[in-house]
């Protein structure tokens, strides 16, 4: 009998553990109502990022939390488990609406995957803002706070063009993920900035890296195998630039090649300072989050909705300024970088 009784105790232990875990739930305030228009007047804002791991989204989340605290609002931060977790983002949206938040800020993993859940949220009177990545169509959300990635790409391209000082470009491109909205805008912007058409013979090679350092290094090693005389490299982001630089340095070619990047993470700015690559174009996740939270608070108080695309800007960071391109040095960059 005794041994059987302990099986029952095992089940009880599981239950107890579950209850203990959920005890954390007791910390939530007990407002006397359900849904929107919280009786205690506390504004609630939900944030749904692509992942919890990427430093960009961590910076976004931390800035949103800080701004919410400043404005006396409560922030609930949820995320997909990986880039592409549309199902997870949809569930997060649904749970936030059910929770009774006043506004939701989201960086959609997929520009179209979550439209149904966004529509339902807006129908229930929740303000929905896109951060960093646009939805498709753009007016699926109330407003978007993001970097103009076409402009950021164009800045990188224009700098590289000026940096080559009249030399004919022999370009390698370390792209992001094939088909990614942001990835394609940066790519197109860069080509516009450097003044090359897609398919030009001066583009010696291009490779998808998914913005991953290891993949970028491998891609660069393979590209250098067949194209030895390159003098310019486009990169989708700083991890890709680091991977590309590692491959170039291993071949002793780093000094002859002008590498450009985009992001403005602190490690990236440090890389520019160390001379690993010449330039990075900084974007401002903190601004996206802060302006998003401010808009949410404003909406809750006055009912005023933001609209359209709000460009949070981008700045060229380099220690080798070139004529005609407005830029800031790495000292400024290190003060304003994220992550």
């Amino acid at each position: 009998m005794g041994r059987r009784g302990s099986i029952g105790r095992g089940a009880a232990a599981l239950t107890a553990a579950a209850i203990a875990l959920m005890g954390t739930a007791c910390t939530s305030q007990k407002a006397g109502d359900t849904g929107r228009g919280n009786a205690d007047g506390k504004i609630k804002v939900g944030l749904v990022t692509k992942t919890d791991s990427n430093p960009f989204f961590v910076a976004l989340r931390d800035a949103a939390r800080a701004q919410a605290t400043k404005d006396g609002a409560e922030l609930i931060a949820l995320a997909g488990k990986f880039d592409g977790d549309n199902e997870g983002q949809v569930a997060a949206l649904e749970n936030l609406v059910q929770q009774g938040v006043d506004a939701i800020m989201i960086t959609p993993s997929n520009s179209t995957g979550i439209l149904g859940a966004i529509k339902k949220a807006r129908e229930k009177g929740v303000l929905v803002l896109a951060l960093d990545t646009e939805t498709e169509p753009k007016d699926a959300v109330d407003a978007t706070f993001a970097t103009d990635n076409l402009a950021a790409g164009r800045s990188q391209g224009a700098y590289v063009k000026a940096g080559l000082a009249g030399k004919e470009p022999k370009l390698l491109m370390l792209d992001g993920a094939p088909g990614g909205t942001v990835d394609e805008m940066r790519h197109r912007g860069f080509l516009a900035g450097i003044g090359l058409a897609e398919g030009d013979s001066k583009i010696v090679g291009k490779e998808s890296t998914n913005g991953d350092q290891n993949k970028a290094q491998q891609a660069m090693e393979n590209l250098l195998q067949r194209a030895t005389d390159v003098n310019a490299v486009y990169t989708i982001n700083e991890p890709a630039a680091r991977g590309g630089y590692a491959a170039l340095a291993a071949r002793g070619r780093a000094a002859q090649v002008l590498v450009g990047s985009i992001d403005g993470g602190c490690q990236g700015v440090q890389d520019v300072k160390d001379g690993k690559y010449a330039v990075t174009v900084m974007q401002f996740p903190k601004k996206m989050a802060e302006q998003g939270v401010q808009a949410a608070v404003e909406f809750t108080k006055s009912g005023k909705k933001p609209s359209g695309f709000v460009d949070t800007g981008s700045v060229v960071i380099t220690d080798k300024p070139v004529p005609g391109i407005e830029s800031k040095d790495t000292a400024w960059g290190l003060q304003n970088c994220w992550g």
Partner: protein
Amino acid sequence: MSTKTKGNVSEFVLRTPAVGPAIALVAAVVVFSLTTNTFLDSDNLSLIVQQSLVVGTLALGQTLVILTGGIDLANAATAVLGTLLMAKLVVGGVPGTVALVTGIAAAVAIGALIGGIVTGASLPPFIVTLGMLTIVTAVSRIYAEGRSYPVTDDTLAFLGTRQYLFGHVEVTVGMGLALLMFVGAWYALTKTAWGKHVYAVGNDPEAARLSGINVRRTVLSVYVVAGLVYGIAAWQALGRVPNADPNAFQMGNLDSITAVVLGGTSLFGGRGSVIGTLVGALIVAVLRSGLTQAGIDSLYQDVATGVLVIVAVAVDRFSRRKQR
């Protein structure tokens, strides 16, 4: 007298591994209902079920495989390929029903292939499905050409878009289908000779063989049925998120194993139930929803889910040891 009653109760718990998880599920629902204002609400309970559909269906197939002592790492990848086939074929002008059947057939074929290799070459399912996970994921990405495909076809989105109201509760066709599948699997496992063979093979393949069971055919049939279930999971996925994305459900295999384990099914095979798996899938969704209602961030929700998994396995180990 009282000792006898107690014995019966613990025997019931022992024979029915879903009871422990069911108690945990009820406890979770009660706790969240008491501590938040928004959890206990017909809309929300309906949402929680909808949020469990895809992982729950993947976990149903996973349960069958695990009952034979195997494991399937390729289940979510198979379903993703199914969604891509369905959505992209429709974009190419193929009628929705044909695309749907093609997607499900592809999943069945992958299941048959895995089962064929596992039984034919006597390779460990872990290795075979690990390899298949890599292959199927790559095939999906090649086939998708780096894009995702929004679903416009009514047949493909049918499971999520067609909704009925029972009183105030929103019920989708997908919920009905999932219920049907779980009840069907429960019936097949507990009331048919095939089901008894599945348990016997998982418990001890050698003993099963000696008692006249065709072990290979049983295992092969389980992988084929599981493939069919993953094909339907693909359909459920398009009902939930009408967009076929090659990057989706990267953690679907582990999520499904989580649901199976939380449902009290033993990873060693031969012991467990699909009803437990249903409960396990619901526990995960209840935790996510309830902790969000309580204003808790997703990273802490992950911690809670992880702890529960370990506790569930510990309970399983503990009860097995005591059984001997």
